[in-house]
């Protein structure tokens, strides 16, 4: 896929794979696989997250995601969404590796259904086991710089702190901790979860994140394909603003027109 970077040569690399698009999109909650595929195209994403689920034995002819989003063109990132223990997540990813044939995966181990907050004790344990088995896990976590550091030390290839609870659309709740994680990490940092609209995605990029992952913000928009375009533009705008370096804030006005030569 030929993706135009907003700045020449501005790419990011995770576990040795280099990408131009800094937007990763989920493939859940869409009305149809056609709409899902159109939204992925409009978003410009080069990576999509996917889930691993049982085949429907009573209907083998159900349409497959792979018929609509070509895994040869778009990198499938298998996700452990819905797993509440390290063991379930590890089991799921072992199967995902067999289904897909690659080691790059997204780990998330949830603590409770109400908030879908990550269980960091189980997440760290699963990260250690997976790294030991040769996986390259990108890891969903709390927006805590210490937890992020521990995951990195355990071998996480990317840190993915939540901006707000999964599916909430509340936007980034703690800019300070996201920035602390960015400053402390040697691996890519991507805000995962909580983005509601384009400005939230731009904000994540302005904080210096390497990318943003979202699903519901696009899938539950009234016009998902249009929102996917908006998110693409927002991620690029936020990235450009970060690279450009924003002006300093002042407490009072500073005129833009020269005062000299006033009539």
């Amino acid at each position: 896929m030929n993706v135009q970077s907003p700045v020449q040569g501005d790419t990011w690399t995770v576990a040795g794979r280099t990408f131009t698009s800094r937007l990763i999109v989920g493939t859940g909650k869409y009305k149809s696989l056609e709409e899902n595929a159109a939204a992925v195209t409009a978003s410009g994403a080069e990576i999509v997250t996917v889930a691993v689920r049982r085949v429907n034995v009573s209907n083998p002819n159900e349409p497959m995601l792979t018929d609509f989003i070509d895994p040869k063109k778009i990198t499938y990132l298998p996700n452990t969404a819905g797993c509440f223990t390290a063991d379930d997540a590890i089991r799921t990813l072992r199967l995902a590796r067999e289904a897909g044939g690659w080691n790059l995966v997204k780990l998330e181990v949830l603590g409770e259904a109400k908030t879908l907050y990550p269980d960091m004790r189980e997440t760290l344990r699963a990260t250690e086991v997976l790294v030991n088995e040769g996986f390259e896990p990108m890891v969903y976590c709390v927006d805590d710089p210490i937890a992020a550091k521990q995951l990195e030390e355990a071998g996480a290839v990317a840190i993915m702190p939540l901006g707000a609870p999964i599916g909430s659309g509340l936007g980034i709740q703690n800019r300070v901790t996201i920035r602390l994680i960015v400053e402390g990490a040697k691996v890519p940092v991507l805000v995962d979860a909580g983005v509601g609209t384009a400005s939230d995605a731009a904000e994540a990029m302005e904080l210096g994140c390497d990318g943003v992952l979202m699903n519901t913000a696009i899938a539950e928009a009234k016009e998902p394909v249009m929102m996917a375009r908006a998110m693409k533009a927002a991620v690029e705008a936020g990235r450009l603003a970060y690279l450009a370096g924003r002006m300093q804030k002042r407490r009072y006005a500073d005129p833009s027109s020269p005062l000299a030569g006033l009539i």
Partner: protein
Amino acid sequence: MTVDHTVQVRINGEHRRVAEGISISELVSELGFDPVRVAVERNLEVVPRSTLGDAKVEDGDDFEIVRFVGGG
């Protein structure tokens, strides 16, 4: 194993009787799935795709057959 030459297995939580001596690859195909587009776990162990054609279905096996679906 019974006189009708079938074995009892569990597939994605459901009991089934299948012909004795078939390979896991044949089992997956018989269910209507393409073995290269799914992943198979038998008794909690992933069965590598390269061995699906050789591995025989045994009486009492517990299979999970999965694929990629949309998700966040």
